[in-house]
């Protein structure tokens, strides 16, 4: 079906006859394009390294800086914020100027946005590799970087709103709505999830604890997917796809419904990351209901995208750009179908903690985000450089090798996930776990991890081919920093005028950017408020357990080592209430166990076994200090060379920074952890005492290690995990328990 195109100039209504001449800023778009390509390669290389490490632990290089727990956040952050982030800015800066018919609001803000963002990325890479991390997924960066992000993000918003306000057209095109919602939602998410108390230059504790921290984190985490990897890319889709196909969007009405429904629903779905975990049932159900509903607007968007290409299908065969876009939009449809499925509790019971999630995000990341950005680059670069793409053949090669890469990456991981989850849950005729040794379930899927490396390698190869192609294109062309343009002036009065007679409210709101921004904030805030207020307000949602006490100073330091090494990237601390898990690990996890956990460390992936019961004497997970020491220094030696856990020999050499300990205790006290008044002055002495006990125990087994080394602290922490609930609430230890008296009533 064809739309009856009007030949009318969209700005004609406001045209007072004066045509204004100005120039689009192409330089900033070009900068962001280069940054997208550069960080894309870096992020994929980091991903390839991480994949290699899971297949062959030697690639951890026995170095803190290059071990998996630190490389994995570098990979995810580089892909999300550096590759896709720069891609979003590239597309937004290009399309904003065109659909609003004006230059960006302020060139200085544009440059601040660009250089600020690159500085953040560089700082992020360095600090993450040094082990400065909050442990919260996709929000790992420590507080100074969080502040930098806030500043640069506000710069972007200011620049964008300024541009919208000085536009020369009346209506604000739908792509821009998606950019506005992105900006609003990310601002809100970033601020709330980064509420943390600094206790050192690059160290902070989340102000939230346990269940509440988990809920805030996954409200953030899922919406990082929703509002950083989806809404802005949809904005790009609504601009670039019609341009590339040379067809207006299939249905503008659908795009409006798509927009509001999507931003409204997305924000509710976070709890689907916490199904069967220590979260109240009503919160889980809410997450499930909204996640399933999300399929409708997502598919509406996909249909709108694909239907826009109607009539251009014949060109798909010879156009690499169109091929990338078609697969990107299809991948969007696939992952937004799969997402709701994975949110259904019975499916989630199987898929969670396995490689299924990893496969799922790579359909979205490599397919939807990656291919969208590649398609846009192949279209935009020749256009801006006033030349043709150097080689259509190479672009086509990139497309095919990239697609093959995605398949070889995802399919083995789906297979691995199925295999492993069934092995975890398998019982033999005697009613015992069929695979009691966790490592057996890892060894079984190792060949699939090898194939996954190949998939990543192919995908990266495609991207490298793109670099060559784009390089040659740029060399042959010329991109003036300023592209001349002209448009009729829009009388400011028309924009500012009150709602006209007979005009609908939406139409009115559409041309008032500030009001529009506030309305989108309301839409995204409702979901958050409804989820948080009850959980924070009602004590009964987090029943406390009297025997749960705060960590000792040594355990607290050990916990910080655990965070710093990224042990949580491979280990969960959350036993779900399934027989297969309680048999393997011990008692299932309760909300009340985590009330002193700033931040929570439940994890999202079990590459290794759950550690929630590592210190529980009733659990099979409990090991001796000696075993823990030997295993941390060399996991392979303890497992006939089979383990894929990285070795951590440096932990035995590194000393804890005891000067920082009192500040950490004080920080915890500020957050409500009931240490006795003035305990910070005594903490280091207690720490030494506890350390000496462990060191003495190890000395008995011929291991000489400092009582204040990182490994001793980490062992103390592991020995504490899950121990409290094995003990009856001790009356004598009332001193520690007293602080939480208000909650235990």
């Amino acid at each position, binding site marked *: 079906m*064809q*739309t*009856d*195109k*009007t*030949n*009318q*100039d*969209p700005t004609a209504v406001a045209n007072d006859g004066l045509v204004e001449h100005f120039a689009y800023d192409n330089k900033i778009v070009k900068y962001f394009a280069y940054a997208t390509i550069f960080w894309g390669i870096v992020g994929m290389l980091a991903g390839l390294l991480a994949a290699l490490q899971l297949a062959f632990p030697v690639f951890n290089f026995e170095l803190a800086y290059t071990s998996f727990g630190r490389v994995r956040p570098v990979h995810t952050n580089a892909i999300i914020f550096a590759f896709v982030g720069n891609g979003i800015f590239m597309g937004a800066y290009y*399309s904003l100027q*065109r*659909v609003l018919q004006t230059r960006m609001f302020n060139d200085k803000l544009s440059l601040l946005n660009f250089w600020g963002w690159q500085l953040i990325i560089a700082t992020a890479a360095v600090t993450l590799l040094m082990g400065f991390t909050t442990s919260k997924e996709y929000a790992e960066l420590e507080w100074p970087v969080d502040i930098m992000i806030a500043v640069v993000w506000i710069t972007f918003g200011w620049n964008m709103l300024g541009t919208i306000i000085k536009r020369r*057209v009346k*209506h604000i*095109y*739908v*792509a821009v709505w998606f950019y506005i919602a992105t900006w609003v939602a990310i601002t809100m998410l970033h601020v709330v999830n980064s509420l943390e108390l600094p206790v050192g230059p690059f160290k902070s504790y989340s*102000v939230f604890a346990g269940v509440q921290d988990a809920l805030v984190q996954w409200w953030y985490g899922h919406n990082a997917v929703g509002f950083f990897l989806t809404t802005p890319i949809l904005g790009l889709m609504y*601009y670039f796809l*019609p*341009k590339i196909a*040379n*067809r*207006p*969007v299939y*249905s*503008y*009405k659908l795009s*409006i*419904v798509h927009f*509001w*429904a999507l931003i*409204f*629903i997305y924000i*509710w779905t976070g709890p689907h990351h916490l199904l069967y975990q220590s979260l109240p049932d*009503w919160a889980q159900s*809410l997450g499930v*209901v909204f996640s399933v509903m999300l399929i409708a607007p997502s598919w509406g968007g996909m249909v709108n995208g694909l239907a826009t290409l109607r*009539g251009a299908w014949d060109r798909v065969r010879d156009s690499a750009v169109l091929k990338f876009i078609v697969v990107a939009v299809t991948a969007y449809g696939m992952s937004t179908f799969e997402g709701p499925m994975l949110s259904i509790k019975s499916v989630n019971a199987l898929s969670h903690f396995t490689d299924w999630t990893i496969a799922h995000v790579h359909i979205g990341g490599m397919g939807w985000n990656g291919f969208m950005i590649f398609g846009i680059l192949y279209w935009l670069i020749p256009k801006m450089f006033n030349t043709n793409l150097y080689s259509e053949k190479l672009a086509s090669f990139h497309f095919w090798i990239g697609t093959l890469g995605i398949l070889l990456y995802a399919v083995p991981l789906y297979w691995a996930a199925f295999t492993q989850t069934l092995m975890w849950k398998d019982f033999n005729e005697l009613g015992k776990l069929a695979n009691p040794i966790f490592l057996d379930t890892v060894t079984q899927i190792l060949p699939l991890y090898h194939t996954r490396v190949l998939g990543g390698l192919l995908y990266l190869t495609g991207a490298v081919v793109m670099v060559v192609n784009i390089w040659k294109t740029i060399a042959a062309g010329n991109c003036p920093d300023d592209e001349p343009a002209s448009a009729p002036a829009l009388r400011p009065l028309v924009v500012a005028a009150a709602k006209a007679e007979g005009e*609908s409210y*939406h*139409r009115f709101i559409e041309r008032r950017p500030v009001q529009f921004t506030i309305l989108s904030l309301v*839409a995204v805030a*409702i*979901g958050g*408020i*409804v*989820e948080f*207020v*009850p959980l*924070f*307000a*009602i*004590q009964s949602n987090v029943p406390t357990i009297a025997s749960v006490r705060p960590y000792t100073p040594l355990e607290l330091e050990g916990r910080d080592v655990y965070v710093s090494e990224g042990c949580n990237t491979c280990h969960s601390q959350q036993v779900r209430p399934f027989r297969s898990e309680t048999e393997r690990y011990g008692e299932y996890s309760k909300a009340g166990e985590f009330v002193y956990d700033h931040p929570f460390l439940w994890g999202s992936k079990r590459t290794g076994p759950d550690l929630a019961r590592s210190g529980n004497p009733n659990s099979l997970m409990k090991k001796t200090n000696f075993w823990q020491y030997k295993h941390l220094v060399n996991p392979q030696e303890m497992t006939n060379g089979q383990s894929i856990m990285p070795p951590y020999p440096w932990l035995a050499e590194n000393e804890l920074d005891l000067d920082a300990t009192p500040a950490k205790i004080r920080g915890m006290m*500020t*957050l*409500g952890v009931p240490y006795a008044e003035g305990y910070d002055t005594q903490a280091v002495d207690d720490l030494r005492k506890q350390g000496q006990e462990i060191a003495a125990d190890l000395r008995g087994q011929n291991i000489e290690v400092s009582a204040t080394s990182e490994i001793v602290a980490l062992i103390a922490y592991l020995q504490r995990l899950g121990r409290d609930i094995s003990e009856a609430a001790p009356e004598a230890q009332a001193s520690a328990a007293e602080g939480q008296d208000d909650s235990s009533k």
Partner: protein
Amino acid sequence: MKLSNYLEHIENIEIFPIVGLVIFMAFFVLLLLWVFKSEKAVMDEHASMPFDEQEIELQHKEQTQNSNRHGQ
């Protein structure tokens, strides 16, 4: 630091999720009504915003050519 101390006593707070769902549904229904009532010409005009005038003319030509071709 404990926000919860202040909010603890909001009565019937469990009803929040239901209220949220109702707000969403109401909003969504109104949105649908409004969208499907909007005029097609205006929508088409908005949809053509990414294009310059020449591009729109070109699209027009292409479309008429296409329909001529199909008509033959």
